Each structure stands twice: as structure tokens, then as C-alpha cells.
């Protein structure tokens, strides 16, 4: 069977009433979660994962994808109307979007964001349909050394792309890997770093940590700041939100550029929707003839990052589904969830569970359409949900964190772990250490260790195995470049500064 017949099968599966229902629930929930300030796509997916345990894996992943995807749309609403981005991927949208709302053109901003997101999403899903299967076939040729090198690449690139400092990113990744080491060693059966605690013998379970580090951390951070928010009034009937012809004209290319930038940034392991929207906004401002309008209410400053974050959100699925490497924190959480059902994302998934993969891909097409409809026709009811007061929202988040962490394994110990992770996450935020690398390290840790050990067994202890196989070598070179890029960049900057200061001294 070729790609298209598989995709057709996928559509048949999505249009089963049950799957369609969960797709709708997912996108609506995602839209709401994305729009609510304070909980983003990662926390949304992490907090709602336990809810999906009663479902069959396909419904579950369809719903979770809908949530992830809905967040990309939903984050825009609060960025534009409250000036608090509901999701980190919408930070750039808020810059111009909120200015537009102040000028009474918030509706247009939202409409343009929805259209941009739809175009970008559709493009990215098409690319995913076309390129993920060949990439997966390529991935099948990977042996342990290649897998290990690929994971190293993902971990290092996530480290420096998400944080301000590469060293802090690396430290987070190492912390995640260390947490993954805890528990009984899978080869020799010896407990490691358990400090004699029986509950730790099975290792640190992934989900409680994620729930804690995103859910509970969020509550703690909020307790410190105690911000509340107010939704701006805006006319949001369909007729009032249609952009003018001139706005279409300036946004058209912004959407195209945002889509392309977003897709390729999203493909890179580690760089997710947030990075993509930053880059797209910067690019748009540099290439625009109306650059002076940026930051003052340029509608293309909304269209570009919004297109980019949707394209990137989908693009992150390419490495996840074809190579088993999550491209962002949210896909890392999704991967952790999939593994609970015994579905290992990676090249084998396309071969062993095609109905699952293609059902998922088809559900993205459907979710995209649903969200376009919601975001052009049903914005007013969405906004009403935003008026939920912050203290109530935060108490709901904490309750879901506690109950969710418990019901993964019906274990109170997991809830303690979640609390520990929450406190850890709080301090990491305070120290400006990026959190996603920890999650990625925790998910990839066991596999990375296995892959490395297998490589050394293959090579009888020689490191050469990583350098003599072309794919592994290429990936390692890329890793080295990623690691050295910030340092070299810093050196160049310092030299330039020095050069600038030198004449001033004279």
C-alpha cells in the first residue's frame, strides 16, 4: 500500500464517531488550555494524559494531538486580548496583536492568526504525510551508534535553543539523564541511586515528574506573583473581524514565510514552536517594508509567528514519528504517553502499527479544519471561559496535578514525586534553567544508555564505532557544532565589542 491509501485508511478511522468525538473534545480542550494564561501546551497535555488511560490508544493520541494543536490556536486569544500569552509559542504574537486590540482591531488580528495557522498547519501536515514515511525507512537503517548520536544531537540542541545559556541547558539535560538512571539497571539488575527506597527501584516514572514540573511549578510560580488578568472587550462577530484588503495583502507573504520558517525550525530536534515564532517574527520585521510599524500593531507581525508556531508544532511530529526523537517538550510528553501504551514512536511504528500512525496524521487534517471553524465562528464563547479568575484556575490546576499524578499508577508515592518535581521546577525557573531538556533527558535517557552500551558491545569497547559509521559521524559533527556555536558566537561578539571599544580608548 502506498502513502495515499494508508492516509485514506486513516481518514476512515478518524471519522469513526468515537474518534471524531475525541478529536473534537481534544481541540476544544486545547483551545481553552492554550487560551488560559498560565497553562501551556506541555502542562495541558501532561495534566490531561491520565484522563486518557481509559481509552484505546488511538482515541487517546488523537485527543492529545488535538489538545497540542488547539493550544497553538488558543494561545493567540489571550496574547491578543489580555496581553498575557497563554502559551509560550504566542509570546511574539502578543507584541503586535495586543497593540491591534488596543486600536480596536483585535478581531482582525485573531482572524488573521486563525487563517495563518490553518494555512501553515495544512502545509506542514502535507509535508509530514509526504516525508515522514521515507524518513522512517531511512531511520530503519540506524544501528545503536546512530541512535545514540541522534539522541545526543537532540539533547544538546534542545539545551541551547530553549534557554539563554547553553551551559544551563546542558545542565538541565544532564539532570534529566541522571533522573533516568535512577532505578534498577536493566542489564545487570543492580539498583542505582535508589538510596534504598523501594519505590524508586522501578525508576523515576515519567508522568508524575512532568505533571509536577509543569503543573505544580506553575501553581508555585503563580503564588509568588499573584497576577490576575482582565479580558479586553472587543467586537467579535464574524462580520466585525474580517480583515481589510490591505491587511490581507501585507499578511499573505508573512503567512507563507512564517510557514516555511516554522516548518524547518520545527523539524530540528529540540527547536519547537516557540523558537519558530521568534525567528519568524524577527525575519518578518527585517524583510518588511513597514518595519517601523512592528511593535505598534502590524498585522503581519501576528500572521508570521502564528503561522510559524503551527507549522512547527506539526513539524515536530516528523522526527517523533519517523525517528523516535521528540522535537519539543510537548512531543516529549506525548512520546512518554505513547510508550505507556506500548507504542514506541520510531521507524518501526510506521511498519508495525500503520493504522495508528495514519489515523493520527489524518486526525491532524481534521483538527485543523475544526480549529479554523472554532477560531473564526466561535471566538466569543471561548473568551467567556477566559474570565475564570486566576485563583480558581490555579486551584483546579493543583487538584488535577494531585489526582492525575495519583491515578497513573494508583500510587501516593507518585504524588510525592510530582511535588518534588514541582519544587525542583520552581527553582529551575528561578535559576533560569530551561525545563524541556530535563523532560527530554528523562524520556530519552534509558534508550540513550541502552544504545551506547550496545554500541560498545558491538565494537568491543572501542569508541571508534561512533566515528567510522558515516551517519553517526555526521550526527556527532552536528552535535559538536551545536555545542560550540554559542561559544564561538560569544567569542565573536566579544571580539566585535573589543574592536568597537578599542578606537574609543584612543
Amino acid at each position: 500500500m502506498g502513502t495515499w491509501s494508508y492516509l485514506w485508511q486513516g481518514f476512515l478511522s478518524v471519522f469513526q464517531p468515537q474518534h471524531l468525538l475525541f478529536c473534537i473534545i481534544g481541540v476544544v480542550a486545547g483551545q481553552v488550555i492554550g487560551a488560559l494564561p498560565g497553562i501551556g501546551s506541555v502542562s495541558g497535555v501532561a495534566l490531561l494524559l491520565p484522563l486518557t488511560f481509559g481509552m484505546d490508544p488511538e482515541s487517546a493520541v488523537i485527543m492529545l494531538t488535538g489538545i497540542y494543536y488547539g493550544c497553538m490556536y488558543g494561545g493567540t486569544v489571550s496574547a491578543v486580548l489580555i496581553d498575557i500569552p497563554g502559551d509560550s509559542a504566542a509570546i511574539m504574537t502578543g507584541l503586535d496583536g495586543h497593540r491591534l486590540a488596543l486600536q480596536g482591531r483585535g478581531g482582525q488580528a485573531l482572524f488573521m492568526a486563525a487563517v495563518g495557522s490553518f494555512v501553515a498547519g495544512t502545509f506542514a501536515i502535507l509535508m509530514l504525510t509526504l516525508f515522514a514515511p521515507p524518513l522512517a525507512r531511512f531511520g530503519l537503517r540506524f544501528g545503536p551508534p546512530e541512535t545514540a548520536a541522534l539522541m545526543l544531537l537532540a539533547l544538546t540542541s534542545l539545551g541551547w535553543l530553549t534557554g539563554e545559556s547553553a551551559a544551563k541547558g546542558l545542565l538541565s539535560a544532564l539532570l534529566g539523564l541522571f533522573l533516568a538512571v535512577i532505578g534498577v539497571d536493566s542489564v545487570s539488575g543492580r539498583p542505582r541511586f535508589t538510596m534504598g527506597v523501594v519505590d524508586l527501584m522501578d525508576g523515576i516514572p515519567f508522568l508524575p515528574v512532568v505533571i509536577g514540573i509543569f503543573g505544580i511549578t506553575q501553581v508555585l510560580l503563580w503564588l509568588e506573583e499573584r497576577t490576575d488578568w482582565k479580558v479586553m472587550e472587543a467586537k467579535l462577530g464574524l462580520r466585525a473581524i474580517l480583515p481589510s484588503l490591505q491587511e490581507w495583502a501585507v499578511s499573505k507573504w508573512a503567512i507563507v514565510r512564517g510557514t516555511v520558517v516554522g516548518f524547518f525550525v520545527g523539524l530540528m530536534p529540540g527547536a519547537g514552536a516557540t523558537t519558530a515564532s521568534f525567528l519568524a517574527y524577527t525575519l518578518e520585521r527585517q524583510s518588511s517594508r513597514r518595519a517601523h510599524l512592528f511593535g505598534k500593531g502590524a498585522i503581519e507581525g501576528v500572521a508570521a509567528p502564528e503561522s510559524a508556531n503551527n507549522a512547527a508544532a506539526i513539524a515536530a511530529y516528523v522526527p517523533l514519528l519517523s525517528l523516535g526523537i521528540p522535537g519539543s517538550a510537548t512531543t516529549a510528553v506525548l512520546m512518554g504517553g505513547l510508550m505507556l501504551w506500548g507504542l514506541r514512536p520510531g521507524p518501526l511504528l510506521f511498519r508495525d502499527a500503520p493504522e495508528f500512525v495514519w489515523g493520527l496524521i489524518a486526525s491532524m487534517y481534521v483538527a485543523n479544519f475544526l480549529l479554523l471553524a472554532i477560531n473564526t465562528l466561535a471566538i466569543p464563547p471561548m473568551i467567556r471561559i477566559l474570565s475564570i479568575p486566576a485563583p480558581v484556575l490555579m486551584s483546579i490546576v493543583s487538584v488535577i496535578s494531585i489526582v492525575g499524578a495519583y491515578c497513573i499508577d494508583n500510587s501516593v508515592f507518585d504524588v510525592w514525586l510530582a511535588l518534588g518535581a514541582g519544587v525542583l521546577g520552581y527553582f529551575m525557573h528561578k535559576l533560569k534553567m530551561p525545563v524541556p531538556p530535563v523532560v527530554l533527558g528523562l524520556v530519552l535517557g534509558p534508550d540513550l544508555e541502552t544504545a551506547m552500551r550496545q554500541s560498545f558491545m558491538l565494537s568491543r569497547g572501542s569508541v571508534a564505532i561512533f566515528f567510522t559509521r558515516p551517519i553517526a559521524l555526521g550526527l556527532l559533527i552536528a552535535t559538536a557544532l551545536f555545542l560550540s556555536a554559542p561559544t564561538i558566537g560569544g567569542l565573536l561578539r566579544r571580539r566585535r565589542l573589543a574592536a568597537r571599544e578599542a578606537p574609543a580608548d584612543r
Partner: protein
Amino acid sequence: MLIWQGCVLGYWVHLSGPGPGFFPVVLGVLLQPVAALLVLAGRSAGEKPAWDRGSLRAVGAGALAFAITIWLVNRLGMLVSVGLYTLAWLRLVGRYRWPRAVALAAGTVLAVYLIFVLWLRVPFPSGILPL
């Protein structure tokens, strides 16, 4: 932050056997330069401490509330302790009046009951409630 770095390093360096210890040691070796780099960066920047006493107290109280709730789960049951948590939260943080706080907390408990007990059939510690 520096002290914390030191602690992490101290834990790292020991081997727990040639096979199983291999990966931790690789991690430990990698951690040294990264930590050293951060220590140097921290020194040269002379950063202010990232938190002050007031915010620490607020966060500590929050974490303590979580801890008490979790501790109560095995004694009073999940539903009761979660309800108490919500009630305390809404009264103390949200500054809601009693009737609204009680109503909201009851609503939360009911929602948790419907979703997790009736729909997902999660076996909660029932505690003092005859459920």
C-alpha cells in the same frame, strides 16, 4: 547555587559497578566542565540571588499545602483531602467568602468524583467516606 552545584558533583563521581556504573560516570564526567563553566559565569556576573524571603515564604507555604494534602490522602481519602485543599486555597489565596468557597470546593470534588471514580474507575483511597 554554587553549593548546590557542589552537592551534585559530590554525588556523581562514585562508580556503582563497571557495567551499570558506566553511564552515570559518563554523565558525571560531562557534568564537571558544564558545572565549572556555570560557576565561573556566576562569579563573573555577580548575579543577585534569584529569590527573596517573601517569595520563598509564599512558595514554601504552597509546597507545604501540597505536602499536607498528599499526607492526608492516605488518612482521610483522596476526595476529602482534595476538597479541603481547594477550600483552604480559595479562602486563603482567593479570599473568597465562605459560601462561595464551599460551593466551588464542593463542585471540584464532584467533578473529580464524576471523572475519576465513575468514568475512569480509579481506585482512590476512600478514607473516611463510605464510597
